């Protein structure tokens, strides 16, 4: 989750009163933002991904001061017409088809503010913008741009400009292969024959989204007063939302918002559109969900605390809020304004009957029987590794592999004995006998919803000087007598076991597992110097036979 830094003094000034650090911490977290720390004047807050409008100091204090009862209700942002045009060329249609833009005037920039804006841009990029994939943002000094501005796609060889903070002009190819931003985000342009650019009426390239701005026409300095801002991507709704967040933040920094006219062929739209959207709310629904008897005036008060306007079952949702999809989202905001800490817990007055899953009970019984025989239960991972599953155990099988793992665990296990052999090999320094078992899920390709069949299997390994076929079969005998099942052992070859000392366990004509003495070759692969007798039983199969 993105973290933002706030200045305590600035925040306290906004709410117009002094409160202790503890109280401040409590209020910040009860607003639904995770307080990380308060150190001196610096407050660190984590913002949940559904509230990108709070990713700036301006956005956060707008929400927080209203929550604290200062400047409640809907905040109106005036938009003036600029009559500036932006023309979207057909060439971007299959490349990065949409943009939403605005001009913000009368900003007073200093180094601190420039840094702040870059910060907001970065935070929006990484969270709401999904690392520029869904939405990329550009901010430009408007005075250096000759309008109308064009958004079009050019062949890479037609693109050449001096990227931000570089000393010389570079070609598109050079930017992607040499520039830091090019190397990081270049994959977003992979496979495209043309790349998108913003270009002004003097044919100056402003930027190549979603990679980098131009140094000459795309760098905001302390002399900049007016900025042109654009968001580009694939979903116009998302871009408009992002633009609204950015424009209102800049307005809170002292700027004036001017709209632009975007020409998508014949279709013309004006952005930004900061009109609040209207959502209906039903008082009964609110009370049903929250279990409280709110009156209309209560929910009005609470909605206003959360930055909404309420009027006759209609809620005016500010244009920078992207998380209000259904009235349930308003219900949550009412609960937050009322205070989660003020809800008294109760228990419902209906009655239900508890019930265990019978297979879980069965597996638990099997474990208890084995514990009665002095065996120690283990608890192992389902993820395994190809070498343990097949090479070390000398046993070929069709493994279910996983993608892009960050560890050496690269597949799902097909059987459990290898997990236990691994446990034994890690416990060579500990006292023997080591007689262990585990019940866990094993995976194999087959007919099911996912194409993988899961079975819960029991594995037992007896590891001590005396372990042999007789000892493991005694356990099998006892277990089956307790489960009231009969079994037969059939001849069986398995490369993990010693030939002539391995058998299939057959129950009611079905294969239910195998039993035997582990092959010394396998033992040495696991660096074991103590004999192991083992069995593996498919409990899912056994349970289905009951």
């Amino acid at each position, binding site marked *: 989750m993105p973290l933002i830094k706030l200045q305590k003094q600035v925040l306290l000034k906004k709410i117009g009163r002094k409160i202790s650090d503890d109280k401040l911490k409590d209020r910040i977290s009860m607003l639904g933002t995770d307080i990380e720390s308060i150190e001196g004047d610096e407050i660190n807050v984590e913002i949940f991904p559904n509230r990108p409008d709070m990713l700036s100091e301006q956005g956060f204090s707008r929400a927080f001061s209203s929550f604290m009862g200062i400047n409640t209700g809907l905040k109106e942002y005036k938009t003036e017409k600029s009559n500036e045009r932006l023309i979207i060329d057909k060439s971007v249609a299959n490349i990065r088809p949409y943009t939403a833009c605005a001009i913000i005037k009368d900003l007073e920039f200093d180094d601190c503010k420039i840094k702040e804006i870059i910060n907001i841009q970065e935070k929006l990029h990484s969270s709401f913008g999904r690392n520029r994939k869904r939405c990329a943002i550009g901010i430009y000094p408007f005075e250096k741009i000759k309008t109308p501005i064009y958004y079009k796609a050019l062949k890479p060889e037609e693109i050449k400009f001096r990227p931000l903070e570089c000393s010389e002009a570079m070609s598109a190819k050079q930017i992607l292969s040499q520039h830091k931003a090019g190397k990081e985000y270049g994959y977003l342009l992979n496979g495209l024959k043309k790349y998108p650019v913003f270009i002004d009426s003097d044919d100056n390239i402003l930027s190549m989204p979603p990679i980098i701005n131009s140094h000459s026409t795309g760098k905001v300095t302390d002399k900049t007063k007016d900025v042109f801002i654009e968001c580009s991507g694939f979903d116009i709704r998302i871009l408009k939302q992002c633009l609204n967040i950015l424009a209102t933040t800049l307005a809170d920094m002292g700027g004036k918002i001017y709209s632009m006219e975007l020409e998508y062929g014949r279709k013309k739209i004006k952005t930004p559109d900061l009109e609040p959207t209207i959502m209906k709310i039903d008082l009964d629904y609110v009370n049903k969900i929250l279990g409280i008897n709110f009156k209309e005036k209560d929910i009005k008060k609470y909605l206003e605390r959360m930055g909404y306007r309420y009027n006759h079952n209609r809620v005016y949702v500010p244009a920078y809020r992207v998380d209000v999809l259904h009235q349930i989202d308003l219900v949550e905001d009412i609960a937050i304004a009322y205070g989660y800490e003020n809800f008294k817990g109760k228990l419902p007055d209906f009655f239900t009957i508890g019930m265990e899953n019978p297979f879980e009970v069965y597996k638990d019984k099997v474990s208890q029987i084995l514990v009665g025989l002095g065996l120690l239960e283990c*608890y*192992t991972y389902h993820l395994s590794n190809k070498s343990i599953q097949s090479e070390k155990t000398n046993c070929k099988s069709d493994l279910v592999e996983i993608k892009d793992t960050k560890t050496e665990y690269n597949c799902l296990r097909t059987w459990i004995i290898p997990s236990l052999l691994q446990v034994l090999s890690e416990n060579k320094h500990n006292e023997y006998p080591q007689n262990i078992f585990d019940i866990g899920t094993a995976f194999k390709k087959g007919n099911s919803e*996912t194409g993988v069949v899961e079975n819960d299997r029991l594995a037992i390994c007896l590891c001590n000087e005396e372990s042999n076929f007789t000892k493991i079969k005694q356990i099998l005998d006892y277990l089956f007598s307790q489960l009231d099942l009969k079994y037969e052992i059939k001849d069986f070859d398995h490369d993990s076991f010693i030939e002539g000392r391995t058998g299939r366990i057959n129950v009611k004509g079905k294969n239910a597992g195998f039993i035997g003495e582990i092959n010394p070759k396998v033992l040495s692969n696991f660096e074991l110097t103590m004999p192991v007798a083992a069995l593996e039983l498919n409990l899912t199969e056994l349970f289905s036979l009951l």
Partner: protein
Amino acid sequence: MNLKKTANLLSPLEREILPLLNKYSSLSDLQKKSGLKEVEVMRALQWLSNKQIIELKEELKEVIKLDENGRQYLKDGLPEKRFLNAIKEEALTLDEIKSKANLSKEEVNACLGILRKKNAINIGKDRGFLIVSINENGKKMLEKESLEALFLKLKFPFEIKDLTNEEKYAFEELKKRKDIIKADLLKLKSAHLTPLGKKIIKIKLKKKSIDTLDSSMLKSGSWKGKDFRSYDISINVPRIYGGKRHFVKESINYIRKIMLSFGFKEMTGPLLQTSFWNFDALFTAQDHPVRELQDTFYIKDPEFGKLPKNLVNKIRLAHEKGIQGSTGWQYKWSENEAKKNVLRTHTTVLSARTLAKLKKTDLPAKFFAIGRCFRNETLDWSHLFEFNQFEGIVVGDVNFRDHIGFLREFFKRLGFEKARFRPAYFPYVEPGLEIDVFHPVHKKWIELGGTGILRPEVVVPLLGEDIPVLAWGPGFDRIIMDYYNVNDMRELYKNDLKKNREVKSWLK
């Protein structure tokens, strides 16, 4: 401890030795009189000394021992005697004597000196060679053993002060000669009764007490009239280990017990799921970061699973356009994305499946699940790619206050009297909460995870109408770690058999 009890503790060996201690104190005497082996006597003395019945003393004494030549002469006879024997019949040259008596040149010379001093031989010369013959004195010497020869036959070692005058003479003579005797320091052990010992020895002890009671004694009744030797019951015994459930399974069973007592039904289901169930049915947009490869385990082959036909369009609608007053996510929902197989990232997937099967007549209903979930993580002390989650849902006429009520009761049962709830965001619940519990020992809040009321976009497609569903799914590895004082998450799955054998049982 009273005397009788102490006496009863005595082992058979101690009982043999104890009466002898009245008269004897040296180890050698005790060994001789008891007829036991030296180690047995030593063991008995040590045990008696542990019980403070005797005091063991060690003395250093200077004693005389036979040296190398001395031991040889004891076997072969002294050289002077062998010299005299060689010339008993005829006078011989020194070389002839040397070979006949099997003596070294040194010994021959020594003998000449000794025998001359004792006036036992005559020495003459023939053609330049010395010739030695025996005289009357010498013949007499042959008839009886010399004092020196007798001395060699004494029982070594012994102290000089114990010698008679004659022995002392022989000792002085032999001392001058090479490697026959030597002086040595010797540790002499002796046992002496303590005041307690003197009392104990007066108690009449049966020599035969019963050590191990066996079945033959019981069958024959031979135990009758005998004493049982008492044991030292405070003694350390060798450690044994029992068979045992794994501590994580024990804690899972405990949570299961709580949920059953609250009237919840258990849900189970596969670990591998389609993204449809794991994400889409839970209204997680297809471009949500949680669905990225770097957070979630996808499967190489089979990469895709099958979708439930009856639900696909309902879920598509919820995502693309929204249902029942929702705007939805307003994007193009992809069936292919939903088909991707994924290792379940939460047990909430089981709740989604349960809701899809639930009939109106089953309501109200409560379900729980405890199970393994996965996330694409590296392995370190605070990160694992497998973890446990427990899941509960309540479906029916319930609200936010019931939600808080349930959670408070649940955590109370786990030992956390204080719980607090903060607003939090999860894509499939609204209102969403984060649970913190107050740790009674460490006096701090622990974050346990997320809960909330399932969104209408989740419930309506699965259940058919907007009925409140309370849902919670905190991880509980942290609770287990806290109970067992584990600081490294990897230990839950490490299976260090020594630790697992010794770890305390889950006592709740």
